[in-house]
């Protein structure tokens, strides 16, 4: 199964944007498996970040996880102020405390313009962006979270399997 649409500059990209190896995660900020994958991904990027282009797309399972979508919107709103990855990391690192309050607290700690952050979080364009990520996951065969794609091909395994395979190559 292959990724639709392909990674573009509209995506949130970490590491080396020119790298030959692209790893993409479809994730949900309230999913415990994504929370468990987060430090593994962080470590992988700390070691191999110069060789990897890492991309995150939202796949909030809203019926199951009521804070998944508010968290996704908060990360997207932070992105509009250049702090996507800071918000992304802070949400996963405090996943057990996830609430509307937590999202605001993180935004304050990141020194975001709070009135802009709040209005952006409600903005329809951001909703569409998160929905667009979800839809792209649906068309790409995402069947749960996290789902990883390696150079556009679905990877059948979790973050640990991914790191193990990278280590072997």
């Amino acid at each position, binding site marked *: *199964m292959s990724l639709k649409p392909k990674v573009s500059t509209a995506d949130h990209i970490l590491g080396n944007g020119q790298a030959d190896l692209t790893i993409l995660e479809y994730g949900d900020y309230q999913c415990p*498996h994504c929370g468990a994958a987060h430090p593994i991904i962080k470590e992988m990027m700390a070691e191999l970040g110069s060789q990897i282009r890492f991309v995150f797309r939202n796949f909030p399972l809203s*019926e199951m996880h009521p804070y998944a979508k508010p968290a996704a919107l908060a990360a997207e709103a932070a992105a509009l102020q250049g702090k996507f990855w800071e918000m992304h990391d802070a949400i996963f690192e405090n996943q057990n405390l996830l609430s509307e309050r937590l999202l605001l607290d993180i935004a304050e700690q990141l020194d975001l313009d709070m009135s802009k952050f709040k209005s952006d979080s409600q903005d329809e364009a951001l909703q569409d962006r998160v929905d667009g990520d979800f*839809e792209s996951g649906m068309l790409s*065969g995402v*069947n*749960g*979270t996290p789902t990883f794609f390696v150079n556009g091909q679905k990877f059948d395994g979790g973050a640990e399997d991914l790191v193990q395979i990278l280590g072997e190559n």
Partner: protein
Amino acid sequence: MLQKNDVAPDFTLYATPDQKIKLSEFKGHNVILAFYPADWSPVCSDQMALYNEMLKYFKKYDAEVMGISVDSKWCHMAFAQSRKLHFPLLADFEAKGEVAKKYGVYDEEEGECKRALFVIDKEGVIAWSYMSPTAVNPGADGIIEALENLKSK
């Protein structure tokens, strides 16, 4: 396993403890039938929970999704409540697996439905079918592609 262009066998199954669903009542709509082995698989990778998140996309194609397993209507009720599912789960319970057998997707050894998908068109004809390895949640990309093809027909 029934294939594209086969007529979808009609059935009547319990969807709730006091309500039955008859497939032929859905003529004029597309139907997604998702046979699956059992209720209560792990949450974040659960196929029914995944489809629950996609109902608005299925709606765009005028498609109704229904899950089918051999679990009883009471088990389905508890599972659907626990996962907040907003679409019917049908109980292929008595005679056990009868509908799955008609569609050629019954696992005699386990006594469960195999993990199989059917997209049925507005005339009640199978437009697409897919058998997934039992342990693998097939996602929804195949369903959407089949519905897209029906739309452009």
